């Protein structure tokens, strides 16, 4: 206990020192977005580097083109059949985004119910865990049988994939609240609704966003897995067809677009986080300046 309070003291002293030196005023959303762009150019540079390496390997004929096609050949395929790709990308995007949004709604609501009712938590947790550990590729055929050949079973698999990280992160976030904050709220005469909306929920958002970023990429995987099992459109279908025809440029094109879809979704979630949680962004910036 003594040790804990002494580290607390150190942390405080630290925060006080940092705060005194860099008191910055935040003006709206603009600088946050600028900082975000500044923070994300590096990964894009790495992507470009990988592209160049890919190009170099194929241009030097180190690998046979039917094993790994050149970037040029891959892009040619995409351009030559642009409407085909546009349609299938749209289908997968639709399934992914819808699945992701449903997972957010269901995930956050179940997390809130679980945090407020230990009985519900105890009875729901094993079920959740079961839904998470069961291989999605193994139950996807069942959804096709139940829900037909349309987009619904794919959306369901996407929801199943994205749901778990959202629930876990929201539960963690809601439980991480400082008990003193809740006591403070009680001395202010706040009702449970006020305490939730003004203190508990906003305090859980950093955790929630961490879960959302994982969930966004999982949703893409979920949609494609659903398409693998039974579909006549979507990127999963494109990849499966290309595989059957040993058409590697087509296969690579499908993979490329699929990865891009995941990355774009991830970046969108991160951008929303920067706009919704500016205080998080400024804290990260502080960490960056002190680590220099």
């Amino acid at each position: 206990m003594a040790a804990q309070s002494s580290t607390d003291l150190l942390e405080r002293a630290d925060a006080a020192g940092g705060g005194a030196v860099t008191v910055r005023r935040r003006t709206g959303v603009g600088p946050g977005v600028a900082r975000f762009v500044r923070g994300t150019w590096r990964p894009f540079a790495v992507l470009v580097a990988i592209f160049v390496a890919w190009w170099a390997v194929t241009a030097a004929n180190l690998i046979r083109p039917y094993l790994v096609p050149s970037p040029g050949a891959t892009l040619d395929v995409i351009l030559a059949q642009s409407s085909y790709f546009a349609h299938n990308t749209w289908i997968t995007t639709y399934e992914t985004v819808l699945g992701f949004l449903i997972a957010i709604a269901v995930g956050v609501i179940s997390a809130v119910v679980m945090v407020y009712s230990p009985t519900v938590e105890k009875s729901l947790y094993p079920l959740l865990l079961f839904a998470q550990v069961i291989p999605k590729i193994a139950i996807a055929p069942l959804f096709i049988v139940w829900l037909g050949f349309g987009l619904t079973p794919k959306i369901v698999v996407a929801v199943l994939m994205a749901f778990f990280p959202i629930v876990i992160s929201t539960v963690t976030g809601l439980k991480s609240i400082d008990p003193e904050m809740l006591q403070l709220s009680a001395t202010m005469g706040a009702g449970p609704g006020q305490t939730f909306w003004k203190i508990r929920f906003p305090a859980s958002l950093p955790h929630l966003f961490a879960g959302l970023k994982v969930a966004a990429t999982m949703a893409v995987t979920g949609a494609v897995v659903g398409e693998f099992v039974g579909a006549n459109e979507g990127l999963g279908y494109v990849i499966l067809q290309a595989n059957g025809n040993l058409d590697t440029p087509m296969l690579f094109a499908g993979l490329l677009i699929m990865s891009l879809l995941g990355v774009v979704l991830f970046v969108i979630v991160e951008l929303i986080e920067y706009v919704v949680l500016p205080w998080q962004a400024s804290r990260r910036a502080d960490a960056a300046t002190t680590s220099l």
Partner: protein
Amino acid sequence: MTSMTVGNTTTPRPADGTATGAAVEIDDVAVRFHTRKKDVTALTDVSLRIEPGEFVSIVGASGCGKSTLLKLVSGLLRPSSGRVRLHGEDVRGPRRDIGYVFQRAALLDWRSARRNILLQAEMRRMPKGEARARADELIAMTGLSGFDDAYPNELSGGMQQRVALCRALLHRPPVLLMDEPFGALDALTREQMNVELRRIWRETGTTVLLVTHSIAEAVYLANRVVVMTPRPGTVAELIDVDLPTERDYGRTMAEPSFARATGRIRELLGAATTSE
């Protein structure tokens, strides 16, 4: 210096037998915590009466139940036995007619200093204009002007505590409870905060209960100091501080009655720790 020992009797004291009028009344209170491993008696035989407008400091060894005492007064905790009254009313649940300053500032990261202060008003659904005016007044009073738009992580530790203090004072609570509010501050900031708090107390006339580990702080600020024994905590002695209302920080430290009071407290606390 008058001192009296409280706790060995359950009958109301005859001298101030009128139950009404006191801001805080604690009557023969005991608190026991039952944890999975063992039962802890945090407080026993605690009786205390605090008049409106008093400034009372509470000192004692770590773990003797000081925080527990404040939680009792605020209704965040129910006593295992005995009774607690606030303005003559039994405390049954969390009380709204108090201001609470926790050891850590407990600010919301996503709210600016001003909006952290106004949280109090939002929760209480106070009229907006009135709350804003009061916040402006407190920000000026605590020297936070110019920092009201800053987020907590952009404020120094002392400023954060000042924000917490403003938040606790926004609704003009008749009773202010402070749990080691300046524990994390450096010595100089702490002195400044002491002078400020003393001034605020005189301006607002609020009844203050302050828990502190600093004997000098306890004596400089208070009219009375409650010295507690180690766990299970009880009141060892009440010490009346015989200092003028107008207290210059440096000059107060040099007063003989200041030395007498701090000396007595040190004696009590020292004796308490060696006997354990």
